[in-house]
């Protein structure tokens, strides 16, 4: 049996690989599934940004102009500030040379057959440069590995009260609830990361200045992010 997404399933009702309802399997609530799989892009295409009126790019999470967040409905920074940043960023001499090698290192690697990625999260006591006795570094914390198969994986601290449940939920007190997003392009498998305006910033490959909030930066094998007090995230291809 082959599921609608092309997996071989051993279960006649839901795909044993991806959980998608098998074609022809009786629908429990026909009303729920009634909307024919009309191209979601069509609905999304006509959507405009409630903040600046710009048309939403299909499936884009943030408005391209003002960085309004379509998912959470949180506004981006004022349009003029966003524009100034976008212009200033490439001109910043400290950032431009540093960003280039990362992009060149990552871009050729991705098409070379890397299909799936994983993020390895480790605790590096060496990053905890200003130890606080009230917040001891958990030096014995084991390394954890998260698959990055979703188009977007949120990295942050879980908050029951604010309803934030990151896919990569970390307990480092220096990490924001919504800290950064890891994007995976579903066709090219290219990974990108963007800081979501975190309090303490996201540092790529030991660079002294943090990533510009809201700007996507491509990453590749063995690129490292340092966040919070002691957390390191390393990207690597998954066989």
């Amino acid at each position, binding site marked *: 049996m082959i599921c609608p997404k092309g997996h071989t399933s051993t279960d006649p*009702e*839901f*795909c044993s*690989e*991806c*959980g*998608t*309802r098998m074609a022809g399997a009786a*629908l*429990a*609530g026909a009303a*729920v*599934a*009634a*909307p*024919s*799989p*009309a191209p*979601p892009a069509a*609905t999304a295409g006509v959507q405009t940004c409630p903040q600046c009126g710009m048309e939403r790019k299909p499936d884009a*999470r943030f408005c391209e102009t003002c960085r309004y967040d379509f*998912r959470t409905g949180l506004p981006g920074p004022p349009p003029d500030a966003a524009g100034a940043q976008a212009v200033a960023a490439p001109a910043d001499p400290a950032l431009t040379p540093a960003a280039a090698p990362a992009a060149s290192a990552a871009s050729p690697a991705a098409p070379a057959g890397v299909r799936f990625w994983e993020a390895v999260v480790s605790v590096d006591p060496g990053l905890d440069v200003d130890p606080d006795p009230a917040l001891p570094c958990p030096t014995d914390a084991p390394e954890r590995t*998260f*698959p990055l*198969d*979703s*188009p*977007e994986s*949120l990295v942050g601290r*879980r908050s*029951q*009260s604010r309803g934030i*449940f*990151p*896919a990569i*939920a970390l307990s480092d007190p220096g990490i924001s609830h919504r800290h950064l997003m890891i994007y995976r392009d579903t066709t090219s498998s290219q990974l990108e990361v963007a800081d979501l305006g975190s309090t303490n910033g996201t540092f790529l490959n030991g660079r002294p200045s943090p990533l510009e909030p809201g700007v996507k930066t491509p990453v590749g094998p063995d690129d490292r992010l340092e966040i919070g007090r002691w957390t390191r995230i390393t990207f690597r291809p998954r066989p």
Partner: protein
Amino acid sequence: MASSDPTAPFHLESYYTPTLPEGGDHLTVVTSIEAAQAGLVAAPQQRVLLFIIDKSGSMSGNPIEAVKQAVIQGVNALDEQSIFGVIAFDETASIVVPPRPATPGDKTNASSALHWLHGSGGTAFSTGLDLARGLLVNYPDAIRRAIFLTDGNNETERPGAFEPVLNACVGVFECDCWGLGTKWTVGEVQEVARRLNGKASLIPGPGEVAAAFRAAVEKAASKAVANVRLRLWSPQGTQLTLLKQMNPTIEDLSASGVRISPQVVEYPIGSWAPGESRDYQIDVAVPPGGLGEEMLAVRPSVVYQQAGQEQEIRSPAGRVVITWTTDEALSSRINPRVAHYTGQEELAQAIQAGLEARERGDDESATRLLGKAVRLATESDNDDMTARLKRVVDVEDAASGTVRLKRSVDKAATMDLELESTTTKRATRRPVANP
């Protein structure tokens, strides 16, 4: 319920919001597991019950005499197929009554053996637990439980001895724990109970030991199947981010999961009695699906051994099937049962933080947090918790959470509130109308 197979030994039912917003990538599920009243197991299983009694110096006199009587009464309540034993510990542990069937003759012998027991020495929990483990490993197929009682701090423990012993006991036996009086530490006793799938409680005075032990013996005798596991299947790309027992008490089981295959994780959920039911919260992160797409996000099942064979029980009502919609009226709806347990967890946290604040002398925070706890307990009709809170604070207005800290508080009331803070009120069985 009507759709369930009435002959199945376990019934699972999941409660959640089946519609996620466009791009929605996580959901919270409450799964109820209920053991059948009849036919849980084909053949009755052997049961072994050990009493692990603190005989340190502080127990001498009334306490130890009361405990002896309570053990004798407890043993007398056992049926002849049960096996029982008694261990006493101070800095070292000794067998008072070696494990034996609860026949009339052996019950008499046990009560004369207990007469020799008197209080002296220090307190090292690990010695009693280790000896119990050594005795119970000899009954690999039985339902193994222990009743642990102490009245003091775990103060004569050899450094580094406690943790390895407790680790070794996990999976060998389950243990309910009692602290007698108020000169013991809640955290220490709670740790033993938590790791060994049991409950920690307070016994205010020697007079109440017998009643507590009688209840514990009944509970142990009711268990019909041991080493049950909750198995969660989830598709590729999803991640189980949390598994918590939410009723009868809140216990985070996330760390105890064992990955069986890339898509299957199992969590040990201990022994079950006929008719017993518990609720679990499952948090799962899913890859966002297309609009109208339907996906099986989690399939919970109950797994246990019977006559050397693994049984897996699935219920159609336990499956978590989600879809994605642009209709916010559907996706923003919170399942009432999920909301109920979110509230109960908030209540537990308010109590714990409130008691901690009072301990450090921060009366302002303590008043605010315990007031919030009173409000949450009242809102959720958690009358037991409201009664416990009223022993620690004077309530002016429950609806707004206006309270005053009692000037002099009975220490037992505070310890009892701390111990019971994670005991939740069960979500109502009757369906709640959606707003």
